[in-house]
């Protein structure tokens, strides 16, 4: 008997009992679907996290002064140097860097224009901050209108400001082409641009931001509060390690560098617990599915005793009979695996659509899942197949 004939007989054996097939495959379908969906959703979720993470978080390093308690009980502290951005600019992997500080304006109020005598001024508690020109690139700021100030403004301590979009709303400024001014106390500052969005330090959107040089000269700012660094993709770890030394060669320990966790470690443990549970459930239903196939195949063997007897009478050996039932149960497992894999993929895609994710699925999984079903079917079929092969033809023919 050829392999093709064996498969043909097995296919016929399964195909002539469709309702039984549906029942038999149910457990395998559920098990495989659970496995594929769990792994698929796990991959998809991890993919979403790392996508966001790569693009934004994974390229941000922040340096701030830290405190250290010395051996004799006194607290050491350090200040960030004004030229930190220039020092960092020399490091490989740094795309942009800038300093940032809140500015104490001594209680002066921030007032927007136009000031109309009749209604008085529009007074608001608007925070004031200072930033070096490079900070805007480092926090990924995008302009709504106008432009940013540059290093020339910074060096000359020009009285120019950039407004965050909320600050602009509150101060009644929406265009900059007429060079409007805002007043801080009684000092006028020219608004050169309005910022629409930032990736980090969203406080900037609420603030009036002036160059570091201006804040230093006008308000006596003592030192930057923080340095924002944007690194090349994948360089954050390395830059984080070198940045403190670059900024403060004498006392790098007195600085704190905030570095994103290495890629992967975040995505991996996000839903590990949930995954474990679903994988366990999937495995359990596969076990139940396998037992189901074994059970129904055994039932089928008992039901088809006279068929077995006839096949033996016309020249089938024990191995032919065993082979047929083995291939039949393997086929049932394969069909269950195919349906289950399809259901699992659909579930992954469906959940992704609802969550607005990009579905990610290893194609190897889609191939391996039906094969796993077939293997389960084969394993489940071994005992029934062996039982079938031990049936004596005379006993089998008598029962017909």
């Amino acid at each position: 008997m050829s392999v093709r004939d064996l498969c043909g007989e097995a296919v016929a054996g399964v195909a002539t009992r469709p309702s039984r097939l549906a029942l038999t495959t149910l457990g395998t379908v559920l098990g495989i679907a659970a496995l594929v969906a769990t792994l698929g959703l796990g991959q998809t979720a991890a993919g979403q996290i790392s996508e966001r993470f790569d693009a934004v978080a994974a390229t941000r390093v922040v340096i701030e002064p830290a405190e250290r308690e010395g051996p004799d009980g006194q607290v050491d502290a350090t200040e960030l140097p004004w030229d930190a951005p220039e020092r960092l600019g020399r490091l490989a992997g740094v795309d942009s860097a800038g300093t940032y500080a809140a500015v104490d304006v001594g209680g002066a109020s921030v007032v927007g224009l136009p000031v109309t005598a009749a209604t008085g001024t529009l007074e608001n508690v608007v925070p004031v901050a200072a930033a070096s020109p490079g900070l805007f690139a480092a926090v990924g700021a995008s302009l709504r209108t106008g432009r940013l100030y540059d290093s020339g403004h910074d060096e000359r301590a020009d009285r120019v400001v950039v407004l965050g979009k909320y600050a602009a709303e509150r101060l009644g400024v929406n265009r900059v082409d007429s060079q409007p001014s805002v007043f801080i106390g009684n000092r006028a500052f020219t608004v050169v641009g309005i910022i629409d969005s930032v990736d980090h330090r969203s406080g900037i959107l609420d603030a009036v931001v002036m160059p570091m040089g201006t804040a230093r000269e006008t308000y006596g700012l003592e030192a930057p509060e923080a340095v924002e660094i944007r690194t090349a993709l994948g360089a954050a770890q390395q830059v984080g390690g070198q940045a403190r030394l670059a900024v403060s060669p004498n006392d790098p320990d007195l600085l704190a560098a905030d570095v994103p966790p290495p890629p992967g470690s975040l995505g991996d443990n996000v839903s590990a617990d949930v995954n474990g549970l679903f994988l366990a459930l999937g495995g359990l239903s596969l076990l139940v599915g396998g037992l189901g196939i074994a059970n129904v195949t055994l039932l089928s063997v008992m039901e088809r005793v006279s068929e077995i007897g006839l096949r033996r009478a016309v020249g089938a050996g024990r191995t032919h009979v065993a082979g047929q039932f083995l291939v039949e149960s393997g086929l049932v497992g394969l069909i269950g695996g195919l349906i289950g894999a399809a259901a699992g993929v659909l579930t992954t895609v469906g959940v992704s659509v609802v969550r607005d994710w990009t579905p990610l699925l290893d194609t190897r999984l889609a191939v391996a899942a039906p094969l796993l079903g077939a293997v389960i079917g084969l394993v489940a079929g071994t005992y029934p197949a062996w039982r079938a092969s031990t049936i004596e033809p005379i006993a089998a023919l008598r029962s017909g």
Partner: protein
Amino acid sequence: MTPVVEMDGIGRTFTGPPPVEAIRTVDLTLEQGEYLSIVGPSGSGKSTLLHLLGLLDRPTGGVYRLDGIDVRTLSERRRTRLRGERIGFVFQAFHLLPRRTVLENVELAMMYLRVPRRERTARARATIDRVGLAHRCDFDPLTLSGGERQRVAVARALTSEPSLLLADEPTGNLDSENAASVLDLFDELHAEGLTLAVITHDDAVSRRAQRRVRIVDGVLA
């Protein structure tokens, strides 16, 4: 010419408890082209003898030569092969596979004999034609009459061109009209030179054979 069947002191005892001596001692010779009927009451050992003749069962004593081959010493595998090649079976209960076509049922035996696909189909069609059912090739056996079903079973038995056709109560499930159609077919096959052994408890059936033997309590009379 070598006889198709040579049985010498064949016995078959089923180990109990209690042990049953279904066949005591049977000496039987069947020449090529003979049409033999074996009659006997229920429980006399007819089916047991047929199983022994058809290599479905092993005797507990005696010598059996099929086509001159001593089958006592053959391995299980060789016996199975010899059975497929040289014996054709027709059973009372037809034993056709349901939801498979008549053609597929008739091709079945040749599959285990490794007859190539094309030849298998050609031979099956020719044999189905021979038993007068060419127009039923693609039917499900469940839709056929009893007589037609039994003729399909005969066709299946004939495809391997056996040395011996064994039939156990071939008309047991048939009305007289259908029974007649099957017995007529046997007459024709006999006329063509086929060796047949038909087992029955029905005298009318056994009278159609060229030679009759009676079995009572496991002994030929």
